[in-house]
């Protein structure tokens, strides 16, 4: 029995190819019908995200199964046979488990540490179970992957560092204000990045939102979108008294707010901290404002610097996460190995029980009539003799397995106890 993971991801295939492949699987029912119709595949799980199209399966004949999946991928009319040569990868056993754990833990993502991937895998798993495509091995694998992802998130700081400008703004605001609940935001001008930052800040529970815009009509429209209030640019000095965070992106070309203005405002604010975000190019706010106490001015370059450091931190945390994944992979493989010995252990016990029963029957026939207590004592005797005799071989099977050639010992035990009586003695491999 082998684990097999094949597919394409953002590292091997361009987005055009991934889109086409993802198009093969809009209808999960159809896809799983296909996968389940193959005799080589006993369990399967199919998942697609914007960065990957992958199939995880359990198979007795991995080569054939991989070929089947590849055929399945190549069925798309717009895919040329050569397209998959470079991009299609097949991972087996250890690599497959590790790859799957890395995907779930968002280590294989384009944006390492992004949280969406786990939800996508969960959704795919729900679909697979709805179609009864998974079995004991994949069920356990998937649940292990979820717990690995949870540990990676909890024990490493992989998701903690902002990797976008709008998120960097939120992260800095948190370092200044601690809690963003109830903090008022003043939006000066509008733009995609400013709106994105505003969206994030609102998500953190920010308070009143005020939009100041050169053209009032546009300001009113924006304010309505964010359930805020629109004011004109003339009211800016007044509005600065109430705001905690100012996002400026007018692109007016000259300095809108000077250091002296802010200095006056700060006195009137009784020095309540003010966080100014200037994402306009050229800048709207006088850079000297940053020298004032309790005022923190960040421009687009500063935020980009935060983002750069966020990437560095994430890469650093990712190496920690990789260690965790490697350890969990080994644990899972060990479980998989013990899974293989269970049929042999059961066969051993069955055989012992059958012998006991047969021998007991013979003996009882020869003995004079005995009491039920005596009969029970005989049964206990035979059962405990066989149990003690089998104890060591079973421990041997469970524990002392050679990692390099796990089948060798299993096979030895099966032959030793003649568990496959119809087997040709010249055939050394069981499966």
């Amino acid at each position: 029995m082998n684990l097999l993971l094949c597919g394409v991801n953002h590292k091997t295939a361009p987005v055009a190819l991934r889109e086409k492949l993802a198009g093969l699987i809009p209808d999960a029912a159809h896809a799983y019908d296909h996968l389940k119709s193959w005799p080589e595949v006993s369990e399967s799980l199919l998942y697609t995200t914007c960065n990957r199209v992958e199939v995880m399966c359990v198979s007795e004949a991995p080569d054939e199964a991989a070929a089947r999946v590849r055929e399945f991928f190549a069925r798309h009319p717009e895919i040329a046979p050569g397209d998959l040569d470079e991009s299609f990868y097949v991972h087996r056993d250890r690599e497959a488990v590790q790859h799957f754990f890395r995907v779930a833990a968002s280590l294989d993502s384009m944006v390492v540490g992004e949280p969406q991937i786990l939800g996508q895998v969960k959704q795919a798993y729900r679909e697979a179970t709805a179609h009864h495509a998974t079995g004991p091995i994949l069920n356990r694998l998937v649940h292990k992957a979820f717990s690995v992802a949870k540990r990676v998130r909890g024990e490493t700081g992989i998701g903690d560092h902002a990797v976008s400008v709008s998120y960097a703004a939120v992260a800095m605001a948190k370092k200044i204000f601690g809690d963003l609940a109830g903090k008022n935001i003043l939006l000066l001008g509008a733009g995609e990045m400013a709106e994105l930052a505003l969206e994030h800040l609102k998500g953190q529970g920010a308070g009143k939102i005020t939009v100041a815009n050169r053209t009032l009509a546009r300001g009113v429209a924006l304010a309505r979108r964010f359930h805020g209030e629109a004011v004109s640019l003339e009211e800016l000095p007044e509005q600065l008294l109430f705001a905690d965070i100012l996002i400026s992106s007018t692109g007016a070309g000259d300095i809108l707010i000077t250091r002296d203005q802010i200095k006056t405002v700060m006195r009137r604010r009784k020095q309540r901290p003010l966080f100014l975000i200037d994402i306009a190019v050229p800048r709207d706010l006088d850079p000297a404002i940053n020298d004032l106490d309790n005022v923190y001015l960040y421009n687009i370059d500063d935020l980009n610097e935060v983002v750069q450091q966020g990437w560095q931190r994430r890469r650093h945390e990712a190496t920690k996460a990789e260690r965790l994944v490697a350890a969990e992979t080994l644990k899972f493989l060990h479980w998989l190995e013990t899974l293989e010995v269970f049929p042999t252990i059961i066969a051993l016990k069955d055989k012992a029980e059958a012998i006991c029963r047969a021998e007991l029957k013979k003996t009882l026939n020869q003995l004079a009539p005995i009491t039920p207590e005596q009969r029970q004592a005989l049964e206990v005797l035979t059962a405990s003799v066989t149990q003690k005799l089998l104890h060591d071989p079973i421990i041997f099977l469970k524990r002392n397995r050679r990692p390099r050639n796990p089948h060798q010992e299993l096979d030895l035990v099966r032959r030793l106890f003649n568990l496959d009586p119809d087997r040709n003695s010249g055939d050394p491999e069981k499966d």
Partner: protein
Amino acid sequence: MNSLFLYLTLFAYFGATGLWLAYFLAQREGYYRAGVWVMAGGLACHTLALIPRAWAAGALPAATFGEALLLFAWALVAAFLVLIWRYPIKILGALVAPLAALMVSGTLILPARQGTVSPLLKGFWLTVHICLTLTGYAALALAGLGGILYLIQERQIKSKRFGFFHRRLPSLSQLDNLNYWCLTIGFPLLTGGIISGSLYAQHTQGRFFSWDPKEILTLIAWLIYAVLLHERLTVGWRGRRAALLAICGFLVLVVTFVGANLWLTGYHSFSSFIQAP
């Protein structure tokens, strides 16, 4: 017996130091929680070590520098545990625990009291004076330590160079609130300590103020805190300036407590509290 508890205390404070440094470096919540328990256990041992001493002396044991250190360490740890229960600035523990451990070590290293305590050091008002002053010191020391953290974090945010500390320190507003909270509690306590002390001095020495170095330095520290509190409440001083003043006040208190006792002499020094056997 009583030194056994002292060693246990020391052990616990060093243990908490280790755990909180580990928390600071690794940012694992488990280390922090373990540190709180170890610290609380240390405080319990500390209390058990103080009780027989107080019993034997018939008053709060504050007659030598070592004894005063032990009392102050107790007040600092207790104040810190109250603080984090109300206001969890976890990283402060990594400063408080080693400080407490050093003070307890100081007690163990410094020579023990030889001779009897001056009768001046026994009396209800003196106990009140010592309690108020030391708890006030403890709260203001926390404000000073918080101020150090504030300055580090503010420097990183202003200069936009985010180093090792940036991720690990709490937000500016949390650190500034710590300053305010400790100040509003520590300042009245210190004021009460000064008033009760001068009343006691009037009662025993016949004068409120003796121009003793310890008294003068304490008054300077009190003035610094008074200015800080006043400015905070009226014009809203906060942030860097508040942190700087809290650190200044803390330094003056350290000089008062350590320097005035070791290098300067006056009737308030520990050397004058002991009568030769």
